[in-house]
């Protein structure tokens, strides 16, 4: 029996969750449990109340709208991985999800849990930053939308109140035929990534017309590279130049890895992801 005692709540509807969140003291939401359960087992977290979201069917959807992919907070990483809709409309996410932990953890882990946990190395966090997703948050007093760039308040801390919860995430979809590439480096497949890169590209056949390069894993939050790619022709030299701009990024410095090393790995990931994305972009 590892977790310290808590009071357990298993609401069936979002309204019930929000009313519990509004009234209970020291409550933690239990989504897929792939981060909170270890913290409970190790007693790093000892909340008085656990609100289990796993009976909430209404937040498990994956819905494609007009240039928007909306995913309910309780959609499991596995469901995203095996979704044809995601694979077609947002292949970057499909590629990224396959790097998350392992099959056994993706079977439980949710997108909402991953975004709220905000681990610096989290693939979904990097993807959400890459496309500028919108986080939809609810409380008893209503809903609000938070642009993903403003979602992190600090290291592993989302900017939401204790009576609020993330209910869904909206991802803008790039036009069909765009190039995409997600690359990460971890010492073992499924481990926390040391650096990751997410690239999205569009081209008119001659030049890159739209580009977004995002680096995750090296700092508390993902960072967008300020490389100038638009209006230029793709080449190894251009990719190398873009990768060099990782020098300007913030990078954590700790016992395991220095900031220089993290930036060095990030450069390699950026180059690989750019190559991959350009190889996939429709050239007309």
């Amino acid at each position, binding site marked *: 029996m590892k977790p310290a005692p808590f009071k357990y709540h298993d609401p069936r509807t979002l309204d019930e969750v929000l009313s519990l969140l509004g009234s209970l003291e020291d409550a933690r939401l239990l989504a897929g449990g792939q981060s909170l359960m270890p913290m409970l087992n190790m007693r790093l977290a000892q909340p008085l109340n656990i609100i289990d979201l796993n009976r909430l069917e209404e937040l498990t959807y994956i819905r494609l709208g007009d240039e928007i992919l909306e995913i309910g907070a309780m959609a499991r990483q596995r469901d995203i991985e095996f979704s044809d809709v995601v694979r077609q409309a947002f292949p970057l996410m499909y590629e990224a999800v396959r790097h998350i932990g392992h*099959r056994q953890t993706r079977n439980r882990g949710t997108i909402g849990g991953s975004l709220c946990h905000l681990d610096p190395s989290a693939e979904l966090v990097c993807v959400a930053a890459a496309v500028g997703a919108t986080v939809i948050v609810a409380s008893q007093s209503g809903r609000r939308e938070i642009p993903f760039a403003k979602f992190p308040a600090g290291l592993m801390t989302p900017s939401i109140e204790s009576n609020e919860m993330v209910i869904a995430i909206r991802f803008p979809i790039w036009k069909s035929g765009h190039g995409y590439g997600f690359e990460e480096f971890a010492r073992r497949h499924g481990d926390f990534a040391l650096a990751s890169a997410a690239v999205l590209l569009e081209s008119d056949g001659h030049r890159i017309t739209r580009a977004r390069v995002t680096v995750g894993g090296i700092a508390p939050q993902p960072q967008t590279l300020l490389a100038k790619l638009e209006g230029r022709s793709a080449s190894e030299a251009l990719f190398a130049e873009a990768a060099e701009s990782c020098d300007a990024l913030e990078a954590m410095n700790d016992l395991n890895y220095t900031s220089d090393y993290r930036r060095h790995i990030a450069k390699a990931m950026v180059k690989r992801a750019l190559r991959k994305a350009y190889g996939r972009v429709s050239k007309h």
Partner: protein
Amino acid sequence: MAESRSISLKVNGVSYHEDVEVRMTLADFLRHSLELTGTHIGCEHGVCGACTVLVDGRSVRSCLMLAIQANGREVTTIEGVAPSPTELHPIQQALREHHGLQCGFCTPGVVMTLLEFLKDCPNPTEEEVRVAISGNLCRCTGYQGIVDAVLAVAGGKRA
């Protein structure tokens, strides 16, 4: 006072109704309440994969699930895998033949992971096998025996 609730679930086809403390993990419930000690506990924080079981056919780490979350679900543990007490499941047989285990501590988790994996991906490449078992730590085999066993059982005739 620790809170308890009663749960009903099926484990290896058998129905159980039990009172559980709400903070009890599924792994502890299987081992201590049902005395199904084939599910092993290694790290208790979701890293080693030894406690892997199937819940409604999907492999999960039972140390990262509460027993109460299995209410109404069907759980399969290593005890429910072999067709009879004297026969091994083909995956178990292959592990035995290819030196896919030594001390055997990680093996129940490996077998449960492979059961789901081979259902989703019946004819995997070596790379796919290596990725599939990356969530199960094995300190004896160096994995090569496990990989050989999976490729043998998947190919059937390839062995």
